[in-house]
């Protein structure tokens, strides 16, 4: 292709400088660069990941004793649970869970205290709405703690002889609606790719259409600049922005959300660089295809949706149906999510990363070729 091998460094550099200058003066975009990742981190990170407190909890107490009461008040003291009412039976408890009126139902079976005193190790049942596993996970962890401490506290009384050895009763937890728990450590690193996808595609998606709508495209087309020089020039400033955002998210993940980081920072930046480049080419391609800014926006969200849903960010990749995996397999975010999680949590070596690196490179090259092809060299 003629357009590829006659590359002028000076013309490309002219584009780079122009884009930097324009970006520098574009307050709104500049605000977006910092604002959107922060907003997303707060929204996703905190809404999904922070320990939710005071979750509505209902009690079905078939056995009322001093022990039951102290167990319930211990639950309240953890701040995770807020007792919202008592239900007469399991059916009403289940209904409350379904309706979302309660996120937990504590079921104290009849004869619990009697069995406890006999040393029969009876069990308390906690049913949890695990739709959002991360939200319920920590709270459930707390329940087991309570079991131990309540038993120990009560040792001063009649249950002293039970204090030794294992807890005198068990807590059975039923996670309803979503038995397979997913942890925050999984979600926050995944946010990096999701945020970068949205930002990079959105910002570059508008650059070509903006030139067209402002009439400056006619000027650009009248100059002897090649499509590849224009696009490569437009991409460069956003690479820096992408890396800046990756840094921001990485720091937030490690120091605000306390996600462990065992891998190599260099590997993370390498992966981020490839991923940012992949998304920028997508953005610039959409921008070349779109007729106006509105269309570019629509295409951006059209691209963003499968990335969000099918890349393993929202749902575990292995759990998705075959067709969804097929779509996921062509999205760079799928590979980046695996890379980021591997780097953050597993500390994978460079060699182990390769299977998820080359697909992003192939993707970028193919999309760039499409972009150059779709770049309109005339005003037709």
């Amino acid at each position, binding site marked *: 292709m003629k357009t590829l091998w006659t590359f002028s460094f000076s013309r490309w550099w*002219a584009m780079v400088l122009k884009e930097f200058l324009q970006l520098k003066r574009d307050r709104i975009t500049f605000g977006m660069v910092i604002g959107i990742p922060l907003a997303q981190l707060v929204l996703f990170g905190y809404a999904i990941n922070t320990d939710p407190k005071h979750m509505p909890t209902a009690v079905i107490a078939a056995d009322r004793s001093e022990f039951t009461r102290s167990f319930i008040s211990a639950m309240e003291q953890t701040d995770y649970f807020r007792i919202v009412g008592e239900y007469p039976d399991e059916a009403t408890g289940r209904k409350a869970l379904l309706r979302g009126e309660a996120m937990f139902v504590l079921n104290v079976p009849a004869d619990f205290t009697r069995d406890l005193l006999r040393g029969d190790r009876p069990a308390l049942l906690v049913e949890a709405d695990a739709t959002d596993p991360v939200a319920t996970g920590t709270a459930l962890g707390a329940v087991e703690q309570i079991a131990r401490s309540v038993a120990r506290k009560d040792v001063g009384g009649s249950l002293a002889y039970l204090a030794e050895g294992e807890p005198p009763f068990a807590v059975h937890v039923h996670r309803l609606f979503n038995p397979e728990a997913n942890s925050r450590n999984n979600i926050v690193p995944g946010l990096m790719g999701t945020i970068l996808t949205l930002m990079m595609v959105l910002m570059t998606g508008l650059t070509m259409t903006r030139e067209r709508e402002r009439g400056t495209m006619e000027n650009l087309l009248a100059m002897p600049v090649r499509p590849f020089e224009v696009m490569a020039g437009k991409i460069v400033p956003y690479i820096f922005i992408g890396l800046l955002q990756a840094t921001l998210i990485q720091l937030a993940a490690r120091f605000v959300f306390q996600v462990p980081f065992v891998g190599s920072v260099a590997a993370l930046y390498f992966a981020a660089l490839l991923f940012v480049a992949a998304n920028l080419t997508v953005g610039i391609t959409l921008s070349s295809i779109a007729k106006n800014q509105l269309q570019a926006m629509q295409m951006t969200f059209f691209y963003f949706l499968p990335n969000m849903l099918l890349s393993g960010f929202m749902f575990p990749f292995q759990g998705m149906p075959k067709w969804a995996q097929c779509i996921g397999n062509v999205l760079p975010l799928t590979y980046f999510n695996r890379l980021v999680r591997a780097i953050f949590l597993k500390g994978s070596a460079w060699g182990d990363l390769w299977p998820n690196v080359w697909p992003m490179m192939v993707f970028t090259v193919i999309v760039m070729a499409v972009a150059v092809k779709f770049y309109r060299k005339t005003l037709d």
Partner: protein
Amino acid sequence: MNGERVIDVRDLNKHFGDKHVVRNVSLQVDRGEIFGFLGPNGSGKTTTIRMVCGLLTPDSGRGTCLGYDILRESEKIKREAGYMTQKFSFWDDLSIRENLDFVARMYGMRPRRKIVDDALAQLGLVDRAEQLTGALSGGWKQRLALAACMLHRPKLLLLDEPTAGVDPSARRDFWEELHRLAAQGISVLVSTHYMDEAERCHKLAYIAYGELLAQGTAAEVAAAQKLSTWIVHGEDLGALAEALKKSPGVEQTVLFGAALHASGRDGAALERSLREATAGTACRLERTDTGLEDVFIHLMNHAVDRTGFRK
């Protein structure tokens, strides 16, 4: 005197949807020539210029610009031609200097710094070089655009209504500059609405509804229509013009303040009608050369008849 052909395009056609915007247009511009391109709004001037410099692909037709094929060698045309768009198309959010610098880099001009400084000095914008271009007034934008499209010393300038909305003295300066450039051998294709500018061109073409109706020097264009024109001096000329409309030989009347121009191809019939209409009034008749304005109005009306378009 048939110099080097700088623009030579034949039978250009362009449709937008089912609208036939440019119809079989052929243009020949010689080296060092200022070629005026006239016609009402929407007649296809901009579209034609864009086809000449490779920004639009003609549906049919062919030709060369600066010796390069307009269909296949637009890259080379772009390097040697300077195109000033009708609508200002530099970057409002870049400063004046940054815009010029961008252009200089695009064409690989050396020494860039000096070239940009010189352009700024010539524009008289040295003090405002760091101002954002968007803050400039219309007239200044126009001058900047012209300076920018000449920065790479093109051999051909394609100027699309470069003086629209520019005050008369700036227009005069602008045309003096064009003639200086032409004297150096630079060719200019310039579209305009102003009659005084048309008269300053070496050659003219008139386009209406996408069709080229006349081409040549001002004298040739005027002569080709074989019009006779009379001027009527006097009062109450509006009523007279109304009365003359249906008279034989009177094809068009144009009011110029205190004078009425009446033209027609049949000179004898025209004169007879005029004498009849003004008999016994204080009006004075005078035969005159047909001016460009009369010719263009005639061409315009003629185009309506010929192509069946309505105004």
